[in-house]
């Protein structure tokens, strides 16, 4: 009996000690993790927009995140957008499924807290009433340059061959793709893992909305001159030559990766769905913004 008691006692102490160590590590690293993730994301966004360390973004460029939620009240569903306003405050705009404006509620939320999913949904719940269910859907970043809309950034996730692929899309104001960046994936190295390579992901660049809507994957090999243009940093092709070749292929389909057709198709379909859905939603949101005279910075 005494033996069992000592065993239990010692195990408890061991567990407590382990818990202590893990708790300290968690607290110490959690903040840095969030910060680093944010910095990384920001860097990717800027590079998709064509800015780099050599060519930094001018002061006039600003990014305005818009968060989309699904709001449920009883059986009824509606879409809700958390929008930043021109005076620095936030507003939650609800639009019903048919695209008609429902309500606009001011949300009390500090700018730096808007980034935290937890704080954000709490603030929205408090504003629209806790009895409504709130489900986070996605996030879009509207980029303005001197108050004029220049681009949209869409982070998204779609099923790949093995697990999920997380990607970031950049579109210009006419929904032409500016670039695609793969943020996370677990495809096979050497096969599906090649989706991160320039010669695949840069194929999306410059494709207008009409082409993207009908985008397919073809299994013919990638033409050599196109590959050189896509890998301009390696092949050292001149800028005007690259532009000429890209122009020539901009309405074509996506060339599949060798041995990874499923991964290529997953990415293509994922990008296609993201662009199509975003264009559909933005049209509704813009109409509501104009009708209701909501003063957003974009």
């Amino acid at each position: 009996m005494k033996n069992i008691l000592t065993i239990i006692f010692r195990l408890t102490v061991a567990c407590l000690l382990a818990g202590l160590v893990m708790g300290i590590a968690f607290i110490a690293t959690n903040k840095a993790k969030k910060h680093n993730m944010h910095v990384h994301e920001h860097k990717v966004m800027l590079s998709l927009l064509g800015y780099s360390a050599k060519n930094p973004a001018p002061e006039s460029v600003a990014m305005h995140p818009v968060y989309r939620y699904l709001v449920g009240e009883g059986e009824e569903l509606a879409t809700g957008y958390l929008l930043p306003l021109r005076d620095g405050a936030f507003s939650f705009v609800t639009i019903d499924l048919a695209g008609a404006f429902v309500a606009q509620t001011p949300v009390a939320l500090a700018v730096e807290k808007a980034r935290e999913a937890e704080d954000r949904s709490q603030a929205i719940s408090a504003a629209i009433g806790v009895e409504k269910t709130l489900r986070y859907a996605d996030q879009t970043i509207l980029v303005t340059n001197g108050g004029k809309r220049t681009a949209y950034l869409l982070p998204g996730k779609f099923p790949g061959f093995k697990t999920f692929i997380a990607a970031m899309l950049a579109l210009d104001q006419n929904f032409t793709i500016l670039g695609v960046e793969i943020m996370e994936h677990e495809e096979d190295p050497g096969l599906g893992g090649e989706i991160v390579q320039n010669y695949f992901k840069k194929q999306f660049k410059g494709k207008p909305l009409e082409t993207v809507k009908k985008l397919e994957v073809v299994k013919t090999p990638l033409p050599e001159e196109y590959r050189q243009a896509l890998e301009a940093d390696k092949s050292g092709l001149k800028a005007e030559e690259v532009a000429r070749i890209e122009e020539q292929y901009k309405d074509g389909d996506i060339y599949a990766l060798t041995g990874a057709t499923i991964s290529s198709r997953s990415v293509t379909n994922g990008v296609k769905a993201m662009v199509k859905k975003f264009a559909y939603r933005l049209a509704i949101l813009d109409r509501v913004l104009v009708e209701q005279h909501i003063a957003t910075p974009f």
Partner: protein
Amino acid sequence: MATDKTNLQLVVNGILNENPIFRLVLSMCPAVGISTTVMNGFMLGIAVFFVQVCSSCTIALFKNVIHPRIRIPTYTLTIATWVTVIDMILAAYLPEAYARMGIFIKLIVAFAIITMRLEMFASKESVTASFWDGIGMGLGFMFGMMALGFVRELLGMGTILGYDVLGFKPLLFFVLPLAGFFCVGLMMAFFNYIEIVYKRARRA
């Protein structure tokens, strides 16, 4: 019972005589799964090194208060704790490397090599000896992973540490995860061959 080996011998022992991958044939999962490049091997090596050294020291430090009946659960708990810590550190400071490593970092918990070293060595020896043994085992694992990564990266992609050295890709096959099986098998055979030749030469 104290070991009669010097600290240097303990380290060398882990790297050569009892190399975890090629000699003890333990912790093979990452050796096959993610040793596709030198860098991957190095990163996972660092993680295992950290967990091995920390766990060895912890167990050696507390060996007198660990009840023999709950020996194995305590080892598991210790390893799990240090794995969680390194998992969180890597996720926070090296997110890109962490994403490549996937689930393998968390799976260090189930690596037989670490439990085995705790049971065979750290639970009997002093803290200093366990520390050096941990370093030896960690380095041995890292060395094995990097050697595999070297061969696979060179043959598969024609690069070393991301630098193009060959200018072409000799055998894409080697960079596919499943080539890890062949690579490990061939390298083990290679080490066996050296040993056989060495013994024959000594006898002659």
